[in-house]
């Protein structure tokens, strides 16, 4: 398999009134084509910053990110992004949202319609094409956002806590659906989450990040066969191991917040 995303020596610092914050420090990561990788860590560990850098929204201060051998300099439809807040355009219908990327590509109207219909079917949204996003539940909105990205046929999916705002049952069913789509379409997925269970359920590899400066603490390969059973002893052993790694970072995060509050 070819390497799809290569992150080498990436630093990212943000200037703030209280001095520079080092969000990412010396990140090296290689992701193969078709791999499902989760970035796991407490808030403030820079996992979203790293995802935004790969997406091209906010470029690294140091280092290079290459996608298929090309250095990332700007956002593009080859790296489809799914946001936690859905980011659907509320003034467009569901079908228009899903077709927008194809329209931008310059596809003929009939082709856009066919492709949109196929995607709406794939995501069980067919009867909602003419609705506006406001009529849809959170889970359905996120399906639309996923359909919108799949329309682009991007080989890479970047997902920023996409199921973080959903209730547990909806979250679970969308996780199943994402795995089905991933295995059918052979996408490379880079998925940000702070849920340990979600990362074990989904990923081929879990990259645990440290709290400020954001570095890679551990890179764990998950070999459990799919579909994964969250009640199995192997699942739980891994969960315990990850919990220890994450909770020490979470403690540092809480310490830092407490210190920031008391010095104010």
């Amino acid at each position, binding site marked *: 398999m070819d390497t799809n995303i290569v992150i080498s020596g990436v630093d990212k610092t943000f200037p703030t009134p209280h001095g520079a914050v080092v969000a990412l420090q010396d990140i090296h990561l290689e992701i193969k084509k078709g791999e499902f990788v989760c970035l796991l860590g407490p808030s403030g560990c820079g996992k979203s910053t790293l995802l935004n850098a790969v997406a091209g*929204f906010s470029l690294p201060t140091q280092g290079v990110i290459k996608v298929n051998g090309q250095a990332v300099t700007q956002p593009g439809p080859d790296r489809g*992004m799914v946001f936690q*807040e859905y*980011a*659907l*355009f*509320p003034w467009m219908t569901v079908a228009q949202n899903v077709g927008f990327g194809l329209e*931008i590509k310059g596809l003929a109207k009939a082709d856009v319609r066919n492709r949109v219909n196929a995607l709406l079917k794939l995501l069980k949204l067919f009867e909602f094409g003419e609705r*506006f996003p*406001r009529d849809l539940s959170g889970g359905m909105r996120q399906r639309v956002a996923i359909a919108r990205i799949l329309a682009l046929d991007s080989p890479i999916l970047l997902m920023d806590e996409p199921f973080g705002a959903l209730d547990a049952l909806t979250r679970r069913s969308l996780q199943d659906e994402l795995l089905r789509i991933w295995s059918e379409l052979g996408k490379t997925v880079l998925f940000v989450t702070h849920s340990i269970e979600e990362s074990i359920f989904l990923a081929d590899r879990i990259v645990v990040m440290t709290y400020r400066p954001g570095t890679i603490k551990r890179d764990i390969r998950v070999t459990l066969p799919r579909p994964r059973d969250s009640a199995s002893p192997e699942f739980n052993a891994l969960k315990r191991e990850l919990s220890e790694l994450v909770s020490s970072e979470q403690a540092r995060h809480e310490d830092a917040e407490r210190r920031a509050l008391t010095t104010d």
Partner: protein
Amino acid sequence: MTEGSQRFKGVLLILGILALWEGVGLLGWVNAKVLPPPHAVAIKWWEYLAPQQPYDAESDSRLSWLLSGELIQDAMGSLYRVLAGFVVGTLLALPIGLMMGASRQIYQLCNPLLQILRPIPPIAYIPLSILWFGLGNPPAIFLIAIGAFFPVLMNTIAGVRAVDGIFLRAARNLGASQTTIFMRVILPASTPYILTGMRIGIGTAFIVVIVAEMIAVNNGLGFRILEAREYFWSDKIIAGMLSIGLIGLAIDQAMSLLNNHLLRWHRGLEH
């Protein structure tokens, strides 16, 4: 409390005030020259509304005869000025507002000038408008355009600036060009603000038209009220004022229908 009975109470309030008004006239508490009773206003209104010449099937069509009453002619004159001035003001304010909202440099360039001009009420331009455009419709339209310009401009700027950055990121991620982002994302995302500005703008236009007609033209509702004052026709003054109120209400309702149609996707400001 159902909506129907609430509305019924609103109608009752109006009827109650009319009865009180009629009553103080009947009891002789106020001079009918100063405050004519509602029935006198209604009669005057009808005279004002009705065609002045008897219908003549030979020379004109029934429709143009029906519309030949003084009130209709005045209302159409005022509406024409409102719409012309509003369109001019809006067409100037929209592109400037969009550019100022989208570009920091343009904002910083234009903002000081606009902040100085904005507090000047359109009415203060009356002497200049007559000097520049003479009498008739042009100075009136100029004043109305100024009145409509600033509300539309300020709201457009605010609307563009309030566009949620996540929409821009999502659009860039889909490969949208700057032009596409502008036309398909920034413009629709700021429509709620722009329409609010237009609604305020047309309200201002309606205020300004009445004043403008008092100085520069010889028809229109504003002109007619002033003329009626010269003759001490207080019933006609009130009839004219109520006409202004009803037309203003109709315009606002029309704007609100347009709003609801264009913003059928919109519910509060959530994404």
